[in-house]
């Protein structure tokens, strides 16, 4: 908690360059986040968001498909595939980042947003598979059968029964992917070329003092996430209460 509070408090520091010593309270940093260094913080932040979103969509789609296949079908290469899925999780980020960087270099792919997205998607897939797999496995096949028994065609059964039931798992996987992507530094550092991301921005500016604007952004993300989670939490409690009353 301390670092979070620290980050939050220092987002109001009236600092000039590096944000180390407390120099007075100001709202300026919050009001003018994007005005320092030609908006470098905001641009990095924007990049991180875009990368996170695209990588999340890709990884969630691919991972969900794999998860369904793994649970629902039996095939020869099952254990090989399981290993292939476990390996990225067991591989330290430096190795992943360095390996992929070397590969892009060898093939002559320029490093930019695309390479970052490709890299992030890669390491998110495994996490998605694990998350969604648990959900698929706990999905009672009888429900789909009931759907078929009640005159649902295969596609109707998928969209009206299977998918809604998997949705919480898929959403959890997507959220996790986004969090992993958004906060990734090591792999990004190897594969980003000159594209800046929020963690990369912080890493680089760590060498010369992080501007308070970074604290502003981090605090804002934090507050946003907290408000979101708490709203969801409270509204769910309220809904349950309503339902309980109904009963």
């Amino acid at each position, binding site marked *: 908690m301390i670092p979070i509070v620290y980050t939050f408090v220092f987002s109001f520091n009236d600092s000039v360059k590096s944000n180390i010593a407390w120099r007075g309270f100001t709202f300026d940093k919050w009001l003018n986040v994007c005005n320092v260094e030609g908006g470098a913080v905001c641009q990095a932040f924007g990049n991180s968001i875009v990368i996170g979103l695209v990588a999340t969509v890709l990884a969630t789609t691919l991972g969900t498909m794999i998860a369904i296949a793994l649970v629902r079908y039996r095939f020869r290469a099952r254990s090989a595939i399981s290993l292939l899925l476990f390996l990225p999780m067991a591989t330290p980020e430096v190795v992943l980042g360095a390996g992929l960087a070397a590969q892009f270099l060898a093939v002559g792919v320029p490093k930019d947003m695309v390479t970052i997205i490709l890299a992030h998607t890669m390491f998110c897939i495994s996490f998605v598979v694990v998350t969604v797999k648990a959900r698929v496995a706990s999905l009672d096949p009888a429900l789909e*059968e009931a759907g078929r028994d009640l005159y649902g065609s295969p596609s109707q059964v998928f969209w009206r*029964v299977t998918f809604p039931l998997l949705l919480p798992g898929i959403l959890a996987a997507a959220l996790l992917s986004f969090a992993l992507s958004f906060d990734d530094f090591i792999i990004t550092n190897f594969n980003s070329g000159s594209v800046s991301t929020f963690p990369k921005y912080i890493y680089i500016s760590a060498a010369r003092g992080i501007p308070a604007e970074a604290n502003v952004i981090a605090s804002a993300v934090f507050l946003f996430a907290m408000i979101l989670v708490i709203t969801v939490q409270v509204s769910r409690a309220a809904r349950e209460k309503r339902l309980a009353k109904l009963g």
Partner: protein
Amino acid sequence: MAMREFAERGADLELVGIHKRFPGFTAIEELDLTIPAGSFFALLGPSGCGKTTTLRLVAGLDEPTNGRILIGGTDVTATRSHERPVNTVFQSYALFPHMTILENVAFGLRRRRIDDPAGKAHEALRLVELDHLAQRRPQQLSGGQQQRVALARAIVNRPALLLLDEPLGALDLKLRRQMQLELKAIQEEVGLTFLHVTHDQEEAMTMADTVAVMNKGRIEQMGAPEELYELPRTAFVANFLGQSNLFTGDVVGATDTAIAVDAAGSRIVVPAARAQRHSGQVTVGVRPEKVELHREQPAAEADRNLIGPGVVTDVSFSGVSTQYLVEIPGAGRVLVFAQNISFGPAAAEGDRVWVSWAVEHGFGLEDTPDEARFQADASTSAIAAQHRDALVAELEEH
């Protein structure tokens, strides 16, 4: 297509030479079965004997390895599940957790684009007395309520053939009896064909027109409930459908009307018409409620079998009747039920008693005596578990 309509009447179901093999395990050996339209057919059998498998084949959720399935005379073996005029009440209910009760019940109607699905769903819910819970979700209902929703969800489609997989298993006795009456009423009213799977023999016998007893993937015996109860053909049926006293011995005399069996010194006469085999070593039996207990040796009568004396080893009061266990040297244990019309037990533990029953109540089994052991525990479920292990091992080798 016809599917867009409610069934106006039930359809015949015909299973021809059905065989179902799972990798490493044969669940159904060879099944031939005809269920006439509009009848209430009960499939009875111990756990793991293949009841659910049979229903799944009929519903199109699994494919038979061999054999054909005809509904209303049409071969549906290759027809996919959602195109068969069949609905199932699943053993596990399988209610959609993400839909309200009403949406669950209306699901099938909507798939077939039937008019006013909500109205019809409400009507079906009223039938099972759950309309007031229409807006809840399945998780918010008790087990018994869920089961009734599952029933409503199937019935609302008025399928030509309704498959019920232990639809009342979760209900307490009281509610169970009530639902049985309602099911029966629905079936008779609409004239649908019901194929009802249960392991509750009393339920099967009170509800069905025809009962089939299944064992290890085969139908052991099939017929009207009374017929099956009165004249079981195998030890399995004799003991699965109610309880029986069985005696094994050689046929020592046979006339046109009766055979006499010597069971370790006791002579037991069985009507020839009620005995499946008339010579060699045979097993004969009688139901416990047909047996009378005597505190003094009664006079021998020609039309009664009398054995004893023996000792009462256990007396237990079960409300409606009292059950006596009599140990008779040679003949083994004999169970006697006596309806509690008067107070107090007719005999006490340790009493010396004789037992007798009218010859006309005896029956003779088809089994050869070495088959005639009913093994309670090494039942199909244990065997199935073993087979499943073998199957998993086999799969993993690939």
